[in-house]
């Protein structure tokens, strides 16, 4: 069953078109990488799905609901959790407060308190460092810890799908490895759908799953990461002439 279906999405900033006519369908439980050179429109596509910068045309369905033009909070409440580029922790809040921000949307449910405490414990188990620093200011965490925090924060919302923009940006390779290790472990544990944007295709090739390659606002390649990972088409996409 398809969890996320995009039809003919277009994103514009003023007279600049960042995404042109992208159609795409993502199955429940998949791991999907979107790769492509800088300026290919990857982030714009994610932001459009999350409702941050609405698509100027096309439709988006998530979990059977049409979410085109919906507010980001409503999309989040359906189980779409977005981890934007640059991590965006709430620096002045403590680690634990950061984790709690997204739990409010279920606050009316019965047994919410116990459930939240349970979720919190689960996140702390996955990322023990967060427990250690839970009363510290989130802004003082290292880059890798912040990345863990935002993933943990996304998990606290009990999402169906986590979309992550450039999780490896600015991280040392061994930290990136750790982050991915945890992500993959979580995915199998919670039957999550992962939608990951990375500039380089290397990580996708390593991790596996489906890989989409974007260039000039369009999807130019779609296939199994391990198979298409280093094909000539990918090379062309990265090093070929750019005109947008």
């Amino acid at each position, binding site marked *: 069953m398809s969890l996320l279906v995009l039809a003919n999405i277009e994103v514009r900033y003023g007279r600049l078109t960042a995404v042109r006519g992208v159609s795409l369908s993502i199955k429940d439980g998949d791991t999907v990488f979107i790769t492509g050179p800088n300026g290919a429109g990857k982030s714009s596509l994610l932001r459009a799905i999350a409702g941050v910068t609405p698509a100027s045309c096309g439709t988006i369905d998530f979990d059977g609901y049409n979410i085109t033009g919906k507010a980001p*909070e409503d999309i989040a409440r359906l189980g779409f959790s977005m981890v934007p580029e640059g991590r965006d922790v709430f620096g002045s*809040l403590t680690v634990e*407060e950061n984790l709690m921000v997204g739990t409010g949307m279920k606050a009316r449910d019965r047994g919410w308190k116990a459930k939240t405490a349970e979720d919190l414990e689960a996140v702390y188990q996955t990322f023990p460092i967060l427990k250690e620093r839970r009363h510290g200011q989130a802004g003082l965490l290292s880059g890798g810890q912040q990345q863990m925090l935002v993933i943990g924060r996304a998990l606290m919302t009990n999402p169906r799908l986590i979309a992550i923009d450039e999780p490896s940006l600015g991280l040392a390779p061994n930290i990136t490895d750790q982050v991915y290790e945890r992500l993959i472990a979580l995915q199998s544990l919670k039957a999550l759908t992962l939608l990951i944007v990375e500039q380089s295709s290397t990580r996708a090739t390593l991790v596996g799953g489906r890989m989409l390659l974007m260039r000039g606002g369009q999807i130019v390649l779609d296939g199994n990461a391990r198979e298409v990972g280093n094909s000539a088409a990918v090379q062309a996409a990265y090093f070929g002439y750019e005109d947008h």
Partner: protein
Amino acid sequence: MLQIVFDSLSLGSLYALGALGIALIFGVMRLVNFAHGDVIAFSIFALLWPSTDALAIVFAGQLPWYLLIPFVLLIGAGLSVLCEIVVFRRFRRASPATMMIASFALGFVIRYFLLMLFTSRPKSISLLPMLSQPVEIFGARLPLLQLITIIATVIILVGLTLFLRRTRFGLEMRAAAENFSMARMLGVRANRVIMGAFALSGALAGAIAMIFGSQTGTVDIQMGASIMLMAFIATVIGGLGSLAGAVLAGFLLGAASVIMQVVLPVDARPFRDAFVYGAVILVLLFRPQGLIAARGTKERV
């Protein structure tokens, strides 16, 4: 000396509360709300019956204090929320400059609405007259009101801090103030948080109106303007979006004003404000992000 401390604190209290009202709204929607001063004026005029006579006809102003204070706070909060629903909601995606001008236009509408109902003549009102008695503390003889102002401000600040730190709504508001779009992506309801911010800010305006009204005994359609300006400046030098910074800067501005008045020679005293503003420029040059830069607050204006 002690007297000067009290003077600075009581003047700073007004600026701090004003700056807080502006910082709250700026935090969640990057709006510099120029209508804030007019909300202050409106909340106090609500105590009077509309009339164009010179003599004020007191209406709700005769309520006992335990009803009077909530009434004024509610009026401020209500008007502020109304502004958000009727006007600012339509400007969510507008540039800060556009919002700022819209808020100015809104303030203009409120001011002239008051002018139409009450004329421009300042009206007198005796609010909480029992506070006008002098008291003696540590050898400094000061008006009870000054003391109450400081105490009330402290109570408001502590209450607000507790609210922001201990409640879910406070948590969402702080998260939204730091990174609004991220908070929304975590399911925080934008409209609810923004309305909450407007309500708080409006209630603060009501509090200022109460204090200012009982201190001056006059209500005037322009009365919010001078506090609003200082508060606005305090918000910026405090670090836009930083509530603690706004409060700190508010008190500093109050202290700067009082100290300049004390130390400047008599001929230079009329130029006091020029010195205060000069100090503002210096602070900005050395700390353009403000005294307490709000982390994660990106430059968007």
